[in-house]
Every structure is written in C-alpha cells, then in structure tokens.
C-alpha cells in the first residue's frame, strides 16, 4: 500500500468520523424527544393545563406552573430588555476606548459565565432578604432579569456591530445627533438581530430552574398568583418536583410537562433562527 492511498483513506476515515460525531449529538436529541413523547403524551390533555398539582398523579396538572411561568417571563422581559439593550447601545455606540469600558466588557464576559445557581444566591441575599421581597414573583423576575442581562447585552452589541459604519457617517453628515443616528438609523437596521438575541435569551430564562429554587420558589402551589408580591412556581420547577418523587405515576406527569416546556423552547429557538434568516436575506450591505 503506498503512502498516498493510505493518506487518502485516513482522510476519508476522518470525514466519516466527523459526520458521526455531529450525528451523535443530533441522534441523542431525537432520542430524547421520542423518549419524553412515549412517556408523557398520554397525560397531555386539556385538563392537564387547567388543573392544579395534586397528590394523585392522574389528577395533577400544570395550571399554577404555566401561569407562574407567564408572570415570571413578563417581569423578566420588562426589566431585562430595556436595560440590556440600553447597555449594549452604550458600549457599542457611545463608550470610548478606555479602561472603564474595558473593565465593563471583561465584567460582562465574566457574568455571562457565572453559574445560574449563583444568581439564585444573589437573588436570595439581595431581593428576598435585603429588599424583603420574600419568595415573590417580583424577586423571581428580578433574579432572572439579572441572569439574562449579559446575554442580551452581548447579542445587542453583536447586532449593532454588524451595521456598517457608512450608515452612521451618512446620518452624521446630514446633521443628525448621535442619539438621532442611533434611534433612526442604527437600531432599525439592527432590529432583527437584536430581537433574535432577545428571543434566545428569553428561551433560556423559560427553562431556568436552579436560581428560582434557590430563591425559595415553592414546589407545590394550589392557587394562582394575583400580583407581584405573591408566591409562585414555574413549569421547570413543577417538572423537577415530579421527577424527584418516588411514585412512578408522577414520571408521566413530568414527561408531559417536559413536552410543553420543550415545545415552548423549541418554538422560541425556531422563531429566532427564522428571524435571523429573514433579516439576513433582506438586508444586503
């Protein structure tokens, strides 16, 4: 066997290995989806969405869980969106290259890597105890808002960076101020990409469990929250609660809850991908 054909075969071999390793990830994803469907689809019914949790698995539902998730998501978005996009705009459009900017940048990069359970401890110490918000929706929303803030800032910056400089120069040349340039030229041009980042950040917040458990969100709630200061539970916590029970009947409930949660996450991700695709096609610089 000569060297050339050996090299060629090695090359071919690696290419198969590459396809296999990519396929491995995708196959696991597929198996996971099929597994939860087999386990949980029988429990999915209208009453599953309209019932409170119960001691009897076949009567239990996710009403308080999904209502809590909607509340928490709304609060998180309301707080994190303006602050995160604002910070992104400042760092990309206003900040000069100096040590303070550098410090803020390193700081955000680090925050993006802080484990989510530590945000839970922050929320527990700061919002639940220090500000005395107790285990309320507001405390939960604030905690998750801080958690996804770095994600929104980073994606906003990336979106703004993709807008060519010539657009800003043209705006300045016609007498616009900096804010007018940002408001009427840069943000509209980057809008699609910013929204993509926002949706991805929110999809992350939907599935977060650990920080909300850490601030003391309840695992069993048989009433609906009426306001910001009420206790709450969310869908992932309800799933966690069902998974960690010894009775087998609750596993089916957990699987059914997972179908709902996974569906929500996948829809949000698909929307983000489509949105990105749409804007990439529409805008050609």
């Amino acid at each position: 066997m000569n060297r050339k054909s050996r090299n060629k075969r090695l090359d071919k071999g690696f290419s198969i290995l590459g396809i296999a390793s990519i396929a491995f990830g995708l196959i696991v994803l597929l198996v996971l989806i099929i597994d939860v469907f087999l386990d949980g689809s029988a429990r999915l019914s209208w009453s599953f969405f309209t019932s409170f949790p119960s001691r009897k698995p076949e009567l239990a539902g996710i009403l308080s869980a999904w209502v809590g998730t909607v509340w928490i998501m709304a609060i998180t978005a309301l707080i994190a969106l303006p602050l995160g996009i604002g910070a992104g705009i400042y760092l990309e459009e206003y900040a000069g290259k100096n040590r303070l900017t550098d410090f803020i940048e390193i700081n955000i990069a680090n925050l993006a890597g802080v484990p989510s359970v530590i945000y839970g401890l922050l929320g527990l110490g700061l919002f639940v105890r220090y500000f005395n918000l107790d285990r309320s929706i507001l405390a939960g929303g604030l905690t998750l808002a801080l958690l996804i803030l770095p994600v929104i800032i980073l994606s906003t910056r990336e979106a703004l960076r993709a807008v060519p400089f010539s657009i800003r120069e043209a705006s300045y040349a016609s007498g616009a101020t900096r804010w007018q340039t940002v408001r009427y030229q840069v943000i509209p041009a980057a809008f699609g990409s910013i929204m993509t980042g926002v949706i991805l950040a929110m999809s992350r917040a939907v599935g977060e469990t650990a920080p909300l458990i850490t601030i003391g969100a309840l695992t069993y709630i048989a009433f609906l929250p009426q306001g910001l200061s009420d206790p709450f539970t969310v869908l992932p916590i309800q799933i966690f609660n069902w998974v960690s029970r010894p009775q087998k009947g609750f596993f089916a409930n957990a699987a059914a809850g997972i179908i709902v949660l996974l569906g929500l996450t996948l829809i949000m991700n698909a929307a983000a991908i489509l949105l990105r695709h749409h804007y990439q096609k529409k805008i050609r610089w």
Partner: protein
Amino acid sequence: MLLKRRVLLKIKETLIERLLFFCSLLSVFTTLGIILVLSFETFEFFKEVPVLKFLTDTQWTPLFINKHFGILPLLSGTFLTTLIAMLVAMPVGLVGAVYLSEYSSLKVRNIVKPLLEILAAVPTVVYGYFALLFLTPLLKKIIPSLSGFNALSSGMVMGIMIIPLIVSLSEDAMRAVPMGLREGAYAVGSNRLQVSFRIVLPAALSGIIAAFILAVSRAIGETMIVAIAAGQQPKLTLNPLVPVETITAYIVQISLGDTPHGTLEYRTIFACGMSLFILTFILNMLSFKLKRRFQEVYE
C-alpha cells in the same frame, strides 16, 4: 429660539447618554452584588467553621447531629461529573468542529449548526429527566452494579449538553485561521486531514483551549442534571457508579428544605456558592484571556 432648541437638544443627548451609561454600569453592580452577598454570609460562616477545616475535612454532614463541614466530598463529586462530561464533550465536540470547519460544505454547516445549538437550548431539567429515567436504566443493562443515582449518567448527559459550546467556539477559532496558511499547505501537497491537524489545529490552539476551559466552567456550574440524577450523598470518591453530590446539587438540596434564615446550615450554601464562584471565575477569566489572544493574532 433656535438657540433654545439647540440647548434642549444638547440636554436631551446628555441625558440619554447618562441613562445608557447607567444601564451598562448595572452589570458592574451585579458582580458587586454577587461578591458582597456571598462574602457577607461566607464571612459569618467562617466565624463558626475554621477555613482550614472547611478545606481539609473529608466529611460533609451539615444536616446531621455530628456536623462536619469539609467541602472535599462536594468538590470530588463536582470534579467527577465534570471529568465525565469533558470526556464525552471534548472528543466529540472537537472532531465535529474540525469537520464543520474544514470538511463540510457551507450549506451543511448552515443547517447543522443551528440544529446543534438546540442541544444547548434544551432546559437542563429535561436533561436531568433523561439521565435519570432513560440513560441510567439503559446503562444498568450493561453495568448491573450501577446505582439509580450516579455520576456516570449525569456526567455523560452533561457532556452531550456541552458539545454545541465546544463545537461552536472551536469552529470559530479554526475559521479565524487565515486562508493563506491552508493554501500554502495544500500547495505543497497536503490533504485535508493533514491541513486540519498540522496547520489549522495548532494555529487555533489557544481558541480551542479557551473553549475547553469555558466548557469545564459550564460543567462545574451545571445544577439541575446532577441535582436530579447524581444523588444527594456527599462522598469522597471517584467511583462513577455510586451516588455523589456536587456543590451545586447541595445548594439545591438545602434550598428545597426549610432551613431557617441565619442558621449555620443556611450559610453553608453561601460558602459553597463562594467556592463555586471563585472556581468558575478563575476559569472564565483564563478562557477570556486566551480567546482575546487568538483574536489579537489573527484579526
């Protein structure tokens, strides 16, 4: 009149800039908040438990009558699950990244990458379910002595979750390698495999190592998978077949109970959080510095 408008405009501009600046400062306050909250409770904790005991005692039994506060068992649990996760994620992720960067067509890459990202978007509580109720029973058929809760299956599932992170960051690093280097190697008769492993990988090494370090940090901080599937028994062991407890799983365990605020048990989770924060902080900074270095070289 015109002058007045200009002054007003100027004030508005300044106000907006201040407001946006405040938004970006908030991230600094968040870090400050984390450090202050963790330090305050950790300080109170160390008033009662000597630091040396915390770092060297080989038992962690804060909820028993005979209390021990040695973090080593929790650290070993964390280390074990992280190691298993990296053993899965590193080879698969790296080979996948080389394939996507050097072998596949642009079309394949554009379809496969977002699909792989879905793996990272799956909520971790879902992975916990998968590890406990799918992978563990499956592995039990091969290894009968496997416990219902174990480090092996939670570590493996964690590794699968981390694959997209490694693929995405390593591929970025490899794609940043200038085309000229590849062309030079092809010109002297190298094939794709040789170009990938002798030219591109070494050139992108700092970026790839940065990706690995970030992956380790992610695995150390991962909570729900291990809280569900690895068990709640802090044990100083490297046996992947028995239940262990990680730092993160312990924090969840205590948070679920009714530990009263202000007690020593309550403070243990902050001491654990502090250890976790320091560990991940060092790794994140290391990864950040390495990533910056490869960006500086090629951009």
